[in-house]
């Protein structure tokens, strides 16, 4: 079951499963940890999208956040990699079997500190996966040291002040060509579920940078990653609706105030603009938005950039959808003539 058992009454989804069927082990995180809230939204999104749980590949690194892949979809296989190296493991898995939905959960330390290098190259390759960063600005599991996403000037309980600028994972992702970049807050469940569903519908790396307060080490007054701070400062740039491909679309929206984006699997994401004419398909606007947000120290959430048509790594490699992992010997071992030909060349 998920950290908190979802309502038993939940109806069956399109493949006849209830939300419970997407649950996992009981969480061992601190009571109130933002990560557990995100786990529930992931569970909900998988359920609503009707993903076959056994087709989910749950990837993570090391950290409290990385533990959470054990807390949902326990009909799917999971892989806790080593610290900061989830991207490589996920890439290898995707090459071996493109048919799984790779859902990665990492932390800000796991991604932005030790993992920065692999993060950069995962994005550059556009490996098909959902990549959720549960961002609390600290290393939870090692008891609260600052991570590379800690905001300039924010303070630890101990009074230590962070004097280095935060790495903006969304800005980095866009710079590196990521085709689905969103920021959210574990407290904003409605938005988060919609964004995760959109990420599942996208083909290529979908990055979600989700502020997820660490109640034990970074939820105090002087923190800029606390529930209070996030609640007080969150400003959604859109109201996000999601229409999955398997539901017919109602075209009852005002194109002036709402933007409709068709995603790779045919689903649509509906963005009711809260910021006058912000268009997440415009890279220029996205960069601008993030830069200003940093300068003004704003906490903006929503779908920041989307490029649904971008080719993913597997298509660039010309790989088929049939998994290499399970091809029988006859299809992978060249015939005698082939070896003979190779030998002939060497005579």
């Amino acid at each position, binding site marked *: 079951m998920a950290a908190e058992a979802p309502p038993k009454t939940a109806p069956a989804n399109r493949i006849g499963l209830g939300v419970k069927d997407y649950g996992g*082990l009981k969480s061992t995180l601190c009571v109130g940890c933002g990560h557990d809230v995100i786990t529930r939204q992931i569970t909900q999104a998988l359920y609503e999208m009707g993903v*076959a749980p*056994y*087709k989910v*590949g749950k990837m993570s690194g090391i950290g409290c956040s990385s533990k959470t*892949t*054990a807390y949902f979809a*326990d*009909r*799917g*296989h*999971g*892989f*806790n*990699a*080593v610290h900061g*190296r989830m*991207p*490589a*493991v*996920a*890439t*290898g*898995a*995707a*090459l*071996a*079997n493109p*048919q*799984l939905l790779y859902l990665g959960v990492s932390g800000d330390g796991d991604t932005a500190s030790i993992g920065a*290098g*692999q993060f*950069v*190259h995962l994005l550059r390759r556009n490996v098909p996966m959902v990549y959720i960063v549960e961002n609390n600005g600290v290393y939870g599991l090692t008891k609260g040291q600052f991570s590379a996403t800690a905001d300039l000037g924010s303070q630890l309980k101990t009074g230590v002040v962070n004097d280095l600028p935060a790495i903006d994972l969304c800005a980095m992702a866009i710079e590196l060509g990521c085709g689905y970049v969103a920021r959210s807050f574990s407290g904003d469940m409605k938005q988060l579920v919609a964004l995760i569903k959109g990420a599942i519908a996208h083909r290529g790396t979908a990055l979600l940078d989700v502020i997820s307060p660490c109640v034990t080490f970074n939820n105090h007054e002087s923190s800029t990653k606390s529930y209070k701070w996030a609640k007080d400062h969150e400003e959604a740039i859109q109201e996000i609706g999601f229409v999955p491909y398997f539901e017919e679309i109602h075209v009852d929206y005002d194109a002036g105030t709402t933007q409709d984006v068709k995603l790779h699997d045919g689903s649509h994401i509906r963005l009711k603009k809260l910021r006058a004419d912000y268009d997440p398909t415009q890279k220029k606007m996205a960069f601008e938005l993030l830069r200003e947000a940093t300068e003004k120290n704003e906490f903006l959430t929503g779908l920041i950039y989307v490029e649904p048509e971008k080719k993913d790594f597997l298509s660039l*490699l*010309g*790989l*088929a959808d*049939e*998994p*290499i*992992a*399970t*091809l029988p*010997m*006859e*299809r*992978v*071992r*060249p015939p*005698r003539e*082939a*070896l*003979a030909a*190779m*030998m002939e060349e*060497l*005579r």
Partner: protein
Amino acid sequence: MSTAVLEDKTAAPSGPRSVVNDFSIHVATANGSGSMSSNNILMRSIFQMGIPVSGKNLFPSNIQGLPTWFTIRASREGFIARRRDVGVLICMNPETAHEDVRTVHPGAAVVYEESLNLKTLRDDVTFYPVPFQKLVLELVHDGKLRRLAINMIYVGVAAWLLDIDMEEVRRAVVKQFKGKEKAVEINNRAIQGGYDWAAANLTKSDPFRLERMNATAGKIIIDGNAASAIGAVMAGVGVVAWYPITPSSSLAESIIEYAKKHRRDPVTGNPTCAIVQAEDELAAVGMVLGAGWAGARSMTTTSGPGISLMSEFVGLGYYAEVPGVIVDVQRVGPSTGLPTRTMQGDILSTYFLSHGDTKHILLLPGSVQECYELTIDAFDLAERFQTPVFVMTDLDLGMNNWMADPFPYPEKPIDRGKVIRTEEELKAHISKFKEFARYRDVDGDGIPYRTLPGQIDNMAAAFFTRGSGHTERATYSERPEDYQANMERLARKFETARRHVPRPVLDGSGARVGVLAYGSSDFAVQEARYLLARKGLRTDSLRLRALPLTPETFAFIAAHDRIYVLDQNRDGQMHDILRLEVPDAHVARLRSIRHYDGFPLDAETVVEGIEAGEKN
């Protein structure tokens, strides 16, 4: 023959008595001067004359302008190890000419660009000054081509000097330039020009000659990296993730070439092998484990520095039990070391790679054919034992040219190990063992069963892979009993491996003295045994082909009074591993011979080492 020439060293200068099909040709040029094609043509011509050859390239860690040497050894007896003494020296590099001449053995023949004026340097070798610069101007009109063509001229000169059949040379040229008309024509002209000039202006007065024989019919010439690449392709590798590093890069690059041609799905025409240049070695091995976990045959290729960087991930592979193949084409360490020199320097640190209690399966190819065969075996073993398996080759094997019989087609079907693939197999497993527990030793061999992600829509099939403590059911655990039981099972699994890894190769006739070697040392060892035998010292030999050690090795040690262990490293790494594992009573029998100057091992070093050991 070998010994004869060894004697030559003392009897300088050698008279008219001729040395046939048993000497080496040493060509000194500058890196990036395009001499590689000339040297290949020279070597192939001799090979085509039916004479056993080997070619070794001694190159610097830069791209252009620094000294390079290429040594072609012709050996009637079929010995293809490096030999110290040089028969014929071709000096094309002014920078090193003086030292090259100074270090050559007495009696040698020295061909050189006449303007270098080397004649005066010594009087115990035969000099053949050749006006290469002048000749190239006459022979090649296109100025751009001269830099390369000049190297073809020495091929012609050598052909005349050593009686190389010009027909074979012309065939070799065609092969070298894949029949590209223009290139073939230009280079042939240069070679012929050199030949004619030599015929007209030189008088042969050294003993070295080549005579047609019939010892190479049907054989191939290949480097170990290409051989491993073919092995990987034939093994059905599905995911290759690599990061360029000398001397391993050409292995991955050969896979790319061969896969393009030979790894398209016969059914769909799609590629059946994904090849990715990773951002570094941590990523490369991470991709290998990810792919192995997902069920593909996966591999990476690297050298020492990469092995060190892979260390953390390899521990994960060992403990979480994920298959993968890692080929280490060893070069000289520590650190960056000598990237273009050869050594067996990573044996010990790779055997124990990663923190905590770990031990790994290492395969040790001793020839290009074994680079091919053991690479195939590596995939079977990795999946059978669900763990990273290392193929430890080296620069000498990997990048040099070796003669071999054509590789046999792998008759043994692919072994994918204990994988539960379908709902039915799962049901059968459960009815037999009550449940599927990922890390439970149900067969008593320490090897558990696994399922692959996304294959079986059944709660019982799913499990969680992690590098932290776990139960037999793959759930998280910090319980001391769980931890200890699992570690003991892993040790048991490693014991099982002793019975499955490739067996050593024995050559025994009940001698008291044993020679134990592995990898590229074998050629020199076999030649040394031949030489020792002619000097009256009989020896038996055992060549390791894998770690952990197998029973045959313990038996060999038990059966000999003194065992000389050949290591191409400073610390006698294999000697140390043997010392750890042989019975107490046999420890004193082990003697370590070490060669570690970055050059391939030669027979004399082995002879000297054993003779010294036998003296006291």
